[in-house]
């Protein structure tokens, strides 16, 4: 435990407060208690070149729109309880991230949703201090849930381990267990590839061939660029060992989308292209999600992205915590959301809850071809003594996080 020493015992104290509040609410009567809940969404924007697909182009309100919808949901519910909610959204350069986070806290914000890469997220968490509860809505790094975890850092975004496990379970269920792994040359691609290696071992798949696709820079799209892609990708994937499926580990968006239909062998692609693991996508309709999609589109005028869903969910977690405890105190809310009493409906067909050992949200992962939901993991038959959701990601026995247990 690095920053936030002594947080855990305060969390315990707060748990007692939670129990007291729960007792107050036990008869269901809604005593109107004033609560003024200030939430901020801080998004760190990085200079990147345009994505391979125009479908993936950046939206100025990415994440903010989802958070705004969550805040509207909270306002509606809060109106019946006398709870006030406000939301401030802000984007920043990486250099200005720490200052922007501090400024938001100085304004009174105690719930801060962050969309940033891991290194910036940690800088922000450590800068805002232990009295602010931070929600990670973007960074997938396993380390953030392990040795780099913080007692005041909650993860809405799934880890790379969760995402890779979600794909692995489906492929194993399909009996596509011989994998041809192609990873990018950037550090995040390598971390993702490592998550797929770990998932293969965990669920009994085999990586029969590995290749690295070098990021040589340059633009990702050019007029008639597909002509060159059509010549290059078959050759790049030629002479691979006999495999059932190609796994692309390409968080940098350099090559994965070029793989489907261009591989030398007629094989499906999964991972960063083809069958992709996401928390949410704009075509998901099951479990009442249609109405959620419609509400989002009405508000923002565009289809939803996973970042928006993550931000919406973070803001809803805060709202649910405030609704059930009747307070806007971040410590009390955190103790409640990490307790067994917390549960939240999130258009995933089952309640979402938190792992008490590392602050990670348990949630089903959608597998999509970017048109429809192909499947939802965990897959049938992948059991776990606590919840099938814990068959994906970093389980308690392997946890390297001590911030929550001390």
């Amino acid at each position, binding site marked *: 435990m690095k920053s936030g020493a002594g947080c855990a015992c305060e969390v315990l104290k707060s748990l007692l407060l939670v129990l007291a509040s729960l007792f107050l609410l036990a008869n269901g009567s809604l005593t109107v208690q004033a609560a003024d809940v200030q939430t901020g969404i801080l998004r760190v924007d990085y200079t990147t070149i345009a994505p391979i697909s125009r479908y993936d182009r950046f939206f100025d309100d990415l994440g903010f729109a989802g958070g705004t919808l969550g805040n509207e*949901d909270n306002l509606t519910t809060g109106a019946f309880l006398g709870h006030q909610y406000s939301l401030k959204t802000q984007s920043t350069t990486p250099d200005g991230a720490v200052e922007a986070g501090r400024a938001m806290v100085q304004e009174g914000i105690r719930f801060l949703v962050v969309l940033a890469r891991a290194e910036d997220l940690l800088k922000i968490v450590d800068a805002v201090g232990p009295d602010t509860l931070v929600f990670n809505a973007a960074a997938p790094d396993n380390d953030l849930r392990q040795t780099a975890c913080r007692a005041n850092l909650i993860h809405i975004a799934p880890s790379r381990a969760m995402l890779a496990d979600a794909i692995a379970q489906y492929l194993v269920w399909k009996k596509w267990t011989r994998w041809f792994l192609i990873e990018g040359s950037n550090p995040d691609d390598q971390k993702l590839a490592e998550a797929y290696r770990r998932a293969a071992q965990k669920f009994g798949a085999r990586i029969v061939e590995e290749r690295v696709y070098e990021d040589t820079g340059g633009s990702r799209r050019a007029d008639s660029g597909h002509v060159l892609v059509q010549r290059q990708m078959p050759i790049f994937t030629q002479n691979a060992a006999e495999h059932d499926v190609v796994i692309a580990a390409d968080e940098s968006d350099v090559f994965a989308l070029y793989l489907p239909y261009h591989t030398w062998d007629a094989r499906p692609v999964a991972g960063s292209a083809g069958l992709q693991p996401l928390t949410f996508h704009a075509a998901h309709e099951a479990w009442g999600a249609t109405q959620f999609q419609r509400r989002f589109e009405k508000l923002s005028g565009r289809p939803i992205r996973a970042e928006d869903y993550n931000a919406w969910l973070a803001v*809803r977690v805060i709202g649910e915590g405030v609704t059930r405890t009747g307070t806007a105190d971040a410590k009390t809310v955190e103790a409640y959301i990490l307790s067994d009493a917390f549960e939240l*409906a999130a258009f995933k*067909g*089952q309640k979402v809850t938190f792992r008490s050992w590392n602050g990670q949200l348990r949630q089903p992962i959608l597998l999509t071809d970017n048109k429809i939901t192909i499947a939802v993991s965990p897959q049938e038959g992948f059991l776990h003594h606590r919840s*099938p959701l814990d068959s994906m990601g970093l389980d308690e026995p392997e946890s390297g996080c001590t911030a929550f247990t001390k």
Partner: protein
Amino acid sequence: MGLPTAKLRTFSTSLLLATCLATTSPALANKAFVSNERGNTVTVVDTETWEALAEFEAGNRPRGIGVSPDGKHLYVCASDDDSIKVFDTTTYEFLWSLPSGPDPELFVLSPDGHTLYVSNEDDNLVTVVDTLKKTIIAEVPVGVEPEGMAVSPDQKYVINTSETTNMAHFIRTDTYKIEHNILVDQRPRYARYTNDGQTLFVSSEIGGTVSVINAGGETGPVLEGKISFEVPGVQAEWLQPVGMRITSDNQWLFVALGPANRVAVINIPNREVEKYILVGQRVWQLEFTPDEKYLLTTNGNSNDITVIDVAAQEAIKSIQVGQQPWGVVVTPD
């Protein structure tokens, strides 16, 4: 859409059988109407022979379904058409549409049949419709994603449950103002009163519980407790309470458990689950026959309805209907 001339798909053999039975039996057979969400149709089932009599087109994505107290008119929420369609229960002809507000999913009729209360999920509203004048009387702002609807037996309150706000809202029927709110578990789907008006049950699909609310509290309704479910061999996540029905003696509460493919039988005085009845897949809504001898369940993923013998608390029959049956209603005697 071809609705004004409702397309009839009659099953001649079963119709014959029904006619034969009708001539030998003095009791008039009732009809069960089942809305098929994916098939865009309503299936008609004879509650004596348990044969499907007909299937007719009912608009886009039919879900909530009800019948007028005189048994003449069938109301169907055509969710994707943003209207409630009214059909003749004898000829299955489309009669007219009622305004409903956008994306109507569930509604409840006042006992006199003159007022319809509709939940509009997209707009956080309950819409009140005059069924005679065919006009909207009021729109009541409620919590996020309103769903379940119930009218208190004394008609003083209409209850709405909001799926994302997780509350049961008690709306006065004379002022259309919310008078009480009760916080329940995640995604409250359905609300049902005992017929003495003393107890209100609210099912929470994702929370996996049924909240028991004392509706006769001195200072307003009070949450008394929650009933949860447990079936060996079934993951707790799949025990998702949805539709409910209560016997008129207030002894038994039947709860559809969705993907658990079971109907729970709750002893109301003891507040305990006594039995789980295995039915079809993704059991959604329930309805009694008027004599309460039978309880019908819609099973969305097996495209059938199950008939439960209420006294024996056993499933006795299943009948194929259209694609993804959602709601069911039975004509009164």
